[in-house]
């Protein structure tokens, strides 16, 4: 018989081992499937890693894609640490992109000072991202509404809101009635590094990681949310206002996702259009867990995991692998993480039946 027994503590090595094993497991499972597709898995994985990490174009595009994903993942550290499951980073990212477009196209379109423009557009991204997280935050804190459901639902609301705008009032009048806004004014385009596509938004990544590190590891607030995460009742007894901290954690989470939205708009996308997000906010959830909610680990995992996704595309191009296999890969990673989460909190005991027991 199998029995789960709660662990007293988990070592850091064990935690890292789970993340690494999960990815290895996913690679093995997909490798087996690749084999059945008639593709040599070793060859395939070589292509998959060489493009994002061994080629200038591949690497710069990987970094660009990793910016919104990693920022959202860093934001998720706060609520996840207190065991509040914000699944709404996607919607918060989209609302950040909306806020950025509102600022760049409709509030300050004539502003020519690039620094001021970038700051204002970023501010609007942060504000709308955090407002979008504030709704489920308040509902959870004061109405006990399940945050998983409310955050997921709000993702769809955000998506439909953007669609409404690009199909309707925000449609580019010169765009032959296609569902896109105008381009951002020049001042709201982030500069690139040299000839690459890497935009200035990349600078924010280490700063945001430090911000998350400071808040969770060095500040008294970090201690509070850790206590809440360990046991909510203890936190209340210790005099911590759990509701307020929960709300703050959600705000911070939305703020970083929203900032990611603003930077993605200014650095890569430059206009709102239907269907422009490839689920960055959902990928961020996997990244936050793979990084075990450690800000520096999340920063590195964000780039590595994005590289895997970008590399996956090479499998399609070179070997004609259907896209569904790529979804299998991500699915296995998520499953492995969930299984690993249980393993890291519980140990499995093989309980033998006692001598005196009758079957």
């Amino acid at each position: 018989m199998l029995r789960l027994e709660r662990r007293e503590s988990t070592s850091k090595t064990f935690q890292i081992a789970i993340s690494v094993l999960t990815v290895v497991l996913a690679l093995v499972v997909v490798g087996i499937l690749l084999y059945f597709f008639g593709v040599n898995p070793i060859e395939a994985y070589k292509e998959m890693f060489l493009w994002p990490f061994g080629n200038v174009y591949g690497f710069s595009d990987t970094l660009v894609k990793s910016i919104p994903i990693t920022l959202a993942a860093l934001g998720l550290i706060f609520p996840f640490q207190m065991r509040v499951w914000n699944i709404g980073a996607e919607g918060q990212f989209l609302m950040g992109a909306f806020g950025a477009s509102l600022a760049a196209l409709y509030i300050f379109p004539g502003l020519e000072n690039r620094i001021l423009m970038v700051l204002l557009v970023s501010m609007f991204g942060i504000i709308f991202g955090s407002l979008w997280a504030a709704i489920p935050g308040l509902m959870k804190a004061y109405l006990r509404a399940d945050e998983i459901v409310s955050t997921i639902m709000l993702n769809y609301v955000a998506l439909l809101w953007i669609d409404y705008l690009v199909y309707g009032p925000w449609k580019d009048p010169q765009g032959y009635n296609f569902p896109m806004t105008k381009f951002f004014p020049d001042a709201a385009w982030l500069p690139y590094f040299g000839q690459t596509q890497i935009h200035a938004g990349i600078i924010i990544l280490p700063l945001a990681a430090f911000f998350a590190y400071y808040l969770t590891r060095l500040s008294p607030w970090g201690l509070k949310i850790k206590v809440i995460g360990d046991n909510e009742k203890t936190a209340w007894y210790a005099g911590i206002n759990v509701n307020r901290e929960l709300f703050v954690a959600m705000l911070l989470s939305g703020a970083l996702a929203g900032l990611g939205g603003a930077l993605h708009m200014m650095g890569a996308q430059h206009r709102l259009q239907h269907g422009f997000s490839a689920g960055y906010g959902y990928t961020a959830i996997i990244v936050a867990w793979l990084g075990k909610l450690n800000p520096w680990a999340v920063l590195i995992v964000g780039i590595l995991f994005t590289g895997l996704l970008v590399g996956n595309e090479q499998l399609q191009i070179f070997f004609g692998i259907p896209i569904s296999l790529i979804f299998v890969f991500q699915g296995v990673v998520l499953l492995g993480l969930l299984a690993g989460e249980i393993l890291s909190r519980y140990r499995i005991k093989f309980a033998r039946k006692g001598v005196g027991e009758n079957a």
Partner: protein
Amino acid sequence: MKHRGFILLMVSLLLVAVVFGAKLKVAFVYVGPVGDAGWTYAHDMGRRHIEEVFGDQIETKFIESVPEGAESERVIRSLAAQGYDVIFTTSFGYMDATLNVAKQFPKTKFLHCSGYKTYTNMSAYFGRMYEPRYLSGLIAGVMTKSNKIGYVAAHPIPEVIRGINAFALGVKAVNPEAKVYVVWSNTWYDPATEKEAAISLLNAGCDVITQHQDSPAPQQAAQEYGAYSIGYNSDMSVFAPKAYLTAPVWNWGVYYEKVIREVLNGTWKSENFWGGMDTGVVDLGPMTDLVPAGTQNLVNAVKQAIIAKKFHPFTGPIYDQEGKLRIPAGEVASDEMLLSMDWFVDNVVGTIPK
């Protein structure tokens, strides 16, 4: 020892480059899965066509389900950077991305489907799908008994609106009483949503269903409800044999063959191609036996008239839903009007979000 491995790798890469270097490398970027039986499937048929025609002279690759916007730019750039000579990007939302990469890789040839931007090394290409749409409208107008025809439509963009209007004008030509009911699905490809949209139209009394969608789900819904159906993109008869009448179809192979031939001959130039039934890029697929012989004859006659440029589906007088005269009697819609169409003709029931 590490160096030896590296040198071996480089030598083998070089060998690969020499062996395959002679081939023209052609890549396709798709918005849906190749198995969608619709839009992407039709493009992939075109890809397979050129593989057959040119054999060893070319090598083709494709990448499916690529999101629009900045995501697609990354994919297109990766193809250009890896030495693909000709890159077809087959969704409207890839337009800016294709242009950005085209500027970055001036030696690569880019062809973007369904947009309006071109560059020295980037063509825009599309087909006058409204011509076969009009023909399918003639059939729907004859077949309906309830005088209610359902149209499951993806997104309210000019391409789709133009198709709805052409279809409705075809209906009106043979049956002035019939109305075309439009439901927006807000998705190009989502079989479940497409089917639900079709069922809502069937429940409202529509007895012919057509679609601007990429899956055959609306066809199947029509068959389940004992109605008739008109498909889109490719021949969908196998999905609803008891309902299916015909479908306006894409023959991308015709255009892809022309492009590749020009590239191989060194005569390719960037262009803005918008071909009608006369080029073969668009056509009305075979009509099934459910369509009466007399109707088939009528459709074929009108088709010949369109091909011979004796008839244009958008010939005035054409009024919009508010009764405003959009195209005066005897005049024909300009290409610019067709390309930016954002109003419905008067026998369409439905609204365009503003």
